[in-house]
């Protein structure tokens, strides 16, 4: 069943998506980790969708997500020194309530990214726009609030050679 903007679930989804975008933009990544269910999957395909056994851009379980955040926050990850600044825009949100109580979401997320600096150094100071169509499967967590069971980020530029995709998507 489609949920519309006036529906309480739609409002809950919108709040979650906006909060996630803000946490990622602010590099509050430990809090971002807690938006996922422990078995949650975070992935990004090279083709139209992530398929088992096929090469992908990203396929993280809980452990890899935590290792990725650890790398970005607590190690000298040179691809993020200087770090990227990002602004994410979430729109075109469609919400579908499923019979099992899960919520399927498809939306457009546009990530604007710049690494602090300017053209006097290669790779810095260039504004990059990464349009995505992002799909979520959300499930109620222990306290009833919706958490992420699956997040699949389909990059518009997925088939092109990408430069330094070291930020979280």
């Amino acid at each position, binding site marked *: 069943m489609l949920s519309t903007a006036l529906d309480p679930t739609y409002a809950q989804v919108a709040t979650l998506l906006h909060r996630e975008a803000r946490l990622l933009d602010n590099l509050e990544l430990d809090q971002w980790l807690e938006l996922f269910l422990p078995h949650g999957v975070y992935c990004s395909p090279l083709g139209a969708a992530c398929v088992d056994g096929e*090469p992908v*851009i*990203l396929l993280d379980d809980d452990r890899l997500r935590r*290792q990725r955040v650890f*790398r970005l926050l607590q190690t000298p990850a040179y691809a993020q020194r200087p770090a990227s600044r990002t602004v994410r825009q979430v729109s075109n949100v469609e919400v579908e309530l499923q019979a099992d109580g899960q919520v399927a979401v498809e939306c457009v997320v546009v990530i604007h990214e710049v690494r602090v600096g300017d053209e006097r150094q290669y*790779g810095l100071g260039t504004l990059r726009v990464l349009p995505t169509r992002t799909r979520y499967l959300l499930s109620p967590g222990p306290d009833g609030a919706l958490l992420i069971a699956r997040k699949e980020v389909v990059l518009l530029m997925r*088939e092109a050679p990408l*430069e330094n*995709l070291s930020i979280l998507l």
Partner: protein
Amino acid sequence: MTDQLSPPPAPQQLDGRWVDQDPAADRYRVRTSAYSDPAVFDLEMSRIFESTWVYVCHESEVAKAGDFKSTWLGRQPIIAARDRTGAINMMLNVCRHRGNAVCRTETGNTVIFQCPYHGWSYGLDGKLAGITDRNRYPSDLAKQIGGLVRVPRVESYRGLVFASLNPDVPELREHLGPVLPYIDHWADGSIGAEYVARTPHKFAYPGNWKFQAENSLDGYHGRFVHESGFAALAHEPGGTEVAADKHEFMAFDSKAGLTRGIPGGHGTLESPGSGLNRQIGVAKVSDRSFDDYHAALSEAYGAERALSLLGSRHVLVFPNLVLMDLNIRTITPISVDRTLVHSFFAEAQGVPAHVNNERLHDLQVRLGTTGFVGLDDLEMFGGNQTGVHARGMEWIELSRGLPTEQVNEAGEHIGAASDETPFRAFWTQWAALLESEV
């Protein structure tokens, strides 16, 4: 008959040479302009990429009749297509009528290449198959034109397809001669049939193509550039941290490992296999996958070679191909300061699916589009490119290990794992091609 390619343009007169070898002083230096000067880049394209053998694709990328791939050879747009006889043809992706590209997709399967502009069509072997409304042309025009301009030389070895725009190059096997044993060693990791190249991860970086070529054999940078990646992969969420320099992920053994500079500009970075770390190359896999792969290798090649194959070896095949354990990596120069890298997972044949799945996962996590390890390498190349434009820093230093390296009977130079030995082989070949007189 199809036309011959026109010869490369005569090089501009450039001031001086780029490689300074001074055996007496144990110094080996390269001019920074070799990485930053657009005129040098143009010369590299004509003297290396459009004159010698260059890697183009893996046979498995065009596995079936009608499969094609459009790519570049040097800076020439080409199509590689498999025809119904099983042959792989390569030709310029340029319609003989008005010069339009006849193929605008990167990969696919077709029966014919039809130019979208006026409908001229060509077979999988490049032969002209049809001219639209042909009676408005002289009657023998189709015969005069023949077809798409063919790449004059295409040969393959162990599934790796190379081509040359120069009809006079020696046979591929002769050209690859000194590096053949290392290609064999890599290719033997697939059992009973050659590897299958899967959908590639693709990267771009703002730097010269030679930074990637060199870095593939650089056993010196890992402790620094990859401290982050190694620490993250060893990180146990909720557990205690392991010091970065204690990680098993430190891929190349500083004591038992070695570097090899091979005549022809090729090279290796090697860590011998002992089976003790229960890794496949540098890939950490489950005990089950290690045991299954080890058993399959032992059955196919015997115990001793199986252990050798479990070691890690990066092989650079001059100028643009890197074979790293389970990875085929191609380097595509776009301009003096921009490069594309395609990284194909090489799926081994003759082993259980779970072995490949684990190795693919390992490759993606380390060296994929969002890899913990590879992205920090690309960051170095941008930093390098910034530096090589500086005046007052005219030379970079490639002398590491020069005083102590050994030369064996095959003419290979052998250095320690962190030595710059293979870079010197690379640059010596590069200089032989670029600094030669016309």
